């Protein structure tokens, strides 16, 4: 695997759309060629070379390419978006759409991320060491296909509207989450190791939500069905199992109604 190192030399005034900063766009390119890829700030079209110092070179394919980004990426959008393979390590906080529509590979952000990160993620591993904003792993506006695969881990807290319309994959938030978690969810697994504010699993059709801490207000459409001992993300504990959202339609499989499930750690 070959490594490209990007170091921010100019912080953009407004923001920079970095849709070309991912292993797929870099694959097969030298540092000079990478420097010529486009970056966008409103109608101003510039190049990555205008904002980054670029060292090293990419591998022949995305899978053979590792990208390390250093410097202040607070105003960089779309870092790692749509990546299908390879590796990226961002040693900074990033802006919107980091790792969105990602289908494979490994993405690590050592700072915080803003909203819409991991949007409609399909595969790969995405780890955020800091906090995440709103709409983490959610669907794009209007789409009923949110996060559908891969593993998304946040070591800090996450905002609201996390995993809206999730259909598959696994999301772990080690800290707290705000309101509207797994709204309209149709599959997959969300694990919240801290507290969840309110509106957990609203309009949940299918899928599983685990909460280790408190839920401030439980949705009326959830009904407790018993206690279970589970191992969740390496923790063994007793959970209260709920089914829901009972206000929502639920598919039938072999005559049995399949409900969404919420597990609350005792």
């Amino acid at each position, binding site marked *: 695997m070959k490594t490209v190192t990007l170091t921010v030399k100019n912080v953009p005034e407004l923001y920079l759309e970095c849709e070309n900063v991912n292993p797929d766009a870099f694959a097969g390119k030298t540092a000079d060629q990478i420097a010529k890829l486009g970056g966008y700030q409103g109608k101003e079209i510039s190049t990555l070379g205008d904002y980054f110092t670029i060292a090293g070179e990419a591998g022949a394919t995305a899978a053979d390419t590792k990208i390390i980004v250093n410097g202040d990426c607070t105003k960089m959008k779309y870092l790692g978006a749509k990546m299908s393979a390879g590796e990226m390590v961002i040693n900074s906080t990033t802006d919107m759409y980091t790792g969105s529509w990602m289908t494979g590979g490994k993405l690590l952000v050592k700072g915080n991320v803003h909203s819409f990160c991991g949007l409609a993620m399909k595969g790969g591993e995405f780890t955020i060491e800091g906090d995440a904003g709103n709409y983490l792993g959610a*669907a*794009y*506006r*209007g*789409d*009923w296909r949110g996060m559908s695969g891969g593993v998304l881990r946040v070591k800090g807290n996450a905002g609201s509207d996390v995993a809206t319309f999730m259909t598959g994959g696994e999301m772990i938030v080690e800290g707290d989450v705000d309101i509207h978690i797994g709204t309209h969810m149709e599959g997959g697994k969300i694990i919240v190791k801290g507290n969840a504010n309110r509106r957990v699993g609203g309009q949940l059709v299918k899928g599983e939500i685990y909460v280790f801490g408190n839920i401030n207000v439980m949705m009326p459409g959830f009904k407790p069905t018993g206690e279970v001992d589970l191992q969740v993300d390496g923790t063994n504990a007793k959970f209260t199992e709920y089914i829901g959202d009972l206000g929502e*339609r639920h598919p039938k499989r072999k005559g049995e109604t399949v409900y969404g499930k919420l597990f609350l750690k005792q």
Partner: protein
Amino acid sequence: MSEYIIKNGHVFDPVQGIKGDKKDIFVKDNKIVDKVGSGAKVIDASGKTVMAGALEVHAHVAGPKVNAGRWYRPEDKHFDSHKTAGITRIEGGKSIPTVFKTGYEYARMGFTFAMEAAMPPLYARHVHEEIHDTPIIDEAALPVFGNNWFILEYLKNQEIENTAAYIAWVLNQTKGYGVKVVNPGGTEAWAWGLNCLSIHDPVPYFDITPAEIITGLMAANEYLGLPHSMHLHQNNLGNPGNYTTTLESLKLAEGVKAKNNFGREQVLHSTHLQFHSYKGTNWGDFESGAKEVMDYVNRQKNLTIDTGNVTLDETTTMTADGPFEHHLNSLNHLKWINVDVELETAAGVVPFIYDPDNAVFASQWAVGLELALYAKDPMRCFITTDHPNAGPFTRYPRVYAWLMSEKYRNERLNTFKKADKVISATTLANIDREITLYELAAMTRAGPAKCLGLSKDYGGLKPGMNADIAIYNINPDKFPSTGPEIEKAFAQVAYLFKDGKICVEEGKIVDMGKKHTFWVDAKVKENKQVMHDVREKFLRYYSVNENNYSVPESYAPHQHIISVDATQA
């Protein structure tokens, strides 16, 4: 003054019976002529196919439900919105393109006219605003009548003259083109959450049946002598076993004669017939009824049809058949829009994915192709996708390729995940017919023009006709051997002339032309009863005043008015 000679092209023109002969076409200003001066610009069409501009007979391209489908599906243009270099605007939308993309894409495929298939009269101004903003192609819109309270009340008493006078008034108010009927009676029933699934189900409160509505509107249409016939979306759309409802509806036209000055021969146009040609009792034993339906259509000379071909894409369904969209939503659970329109109609919108791995959808695909392949008279069978219901109109090149190449469609048929089931539920595998370029010209040009009452000026290349001409990179002597090659050739014209001006060159838009809005101005004897009823309904039941209902002519800056005089009828 501009003059052109389109030289040495292979001309396909059913109007003159020209079947691919090498022939020069002369263009002077906006007309096709016998000859031009020596200064005429020469377009070398050798090795190319020359046809008249194509006419779309049924598509949902402008208006409230189309636009609802656009804006409530941001995901339909995410990563799709783009701009090509040159004079065009930003284009976007896969299943429901924006107005700009709609105009450009039709033009790129060689179309010069599109009929918006369902205009709710109360929303007519919206339809015309979109038509106004759609570049290049001429357009017209059909107001919907099949669930309109005036119509239901008049036809309950068989008052054909009043029905006709009301239709004439609406066409004038809405700048409409003809009489569209969608799920007659069923959509009014839907205002109470009900439906009419057979043509004999009574419409709640109004004490009339769909059969009576169809018969009466057909009579009123011929009373007026409109350029187009009644345009019917039958009851019971999309349900297994519905081909019997379809045949019953079509039989209502038996013995009815076309009466008009436009050369139109049909009295009933049956639209998106694919959705109405199903046998079986449920989706498990679902079978194609295309053969039965087309055997009947082939015999009845006063019928025309369009196909409604499923293209196997993710699309957005939308129809004035409100109860059907509700039903569809209960099947696929995707986001549902419904709008009931006071006194007139309703509409629904639901996204839909025609997944080729699903035996039903793959069979629907086969049914659409069977209809066209069973058609004996290509002048009475037109190819549509009921855009965007069975698929986006941008897929026409692929539908043409499936129809023109047995090999291409069999490749598709045999590679379905449930191929065995599709092959046994349909008869497509037994059909070896390949539609010829001449037949295609009838199905997409001469036929639709005649059906719409526009055959005097459109749909052909005869001197005196309008200079709407599509030139394709297809050499009939070396017809493309693969499906994708056929698709490519139909997707991007070599040239498109619209009103004698080159608007597209090698798939690139070079001129916005001069788009016209067609509408029909029908004159009837003064009818005090109808005008009294109009006043009364506006005073008591509408939510807008009568004086704020009509669409001013300023909405159609380039209007093409077709006048009809029914004062002597």
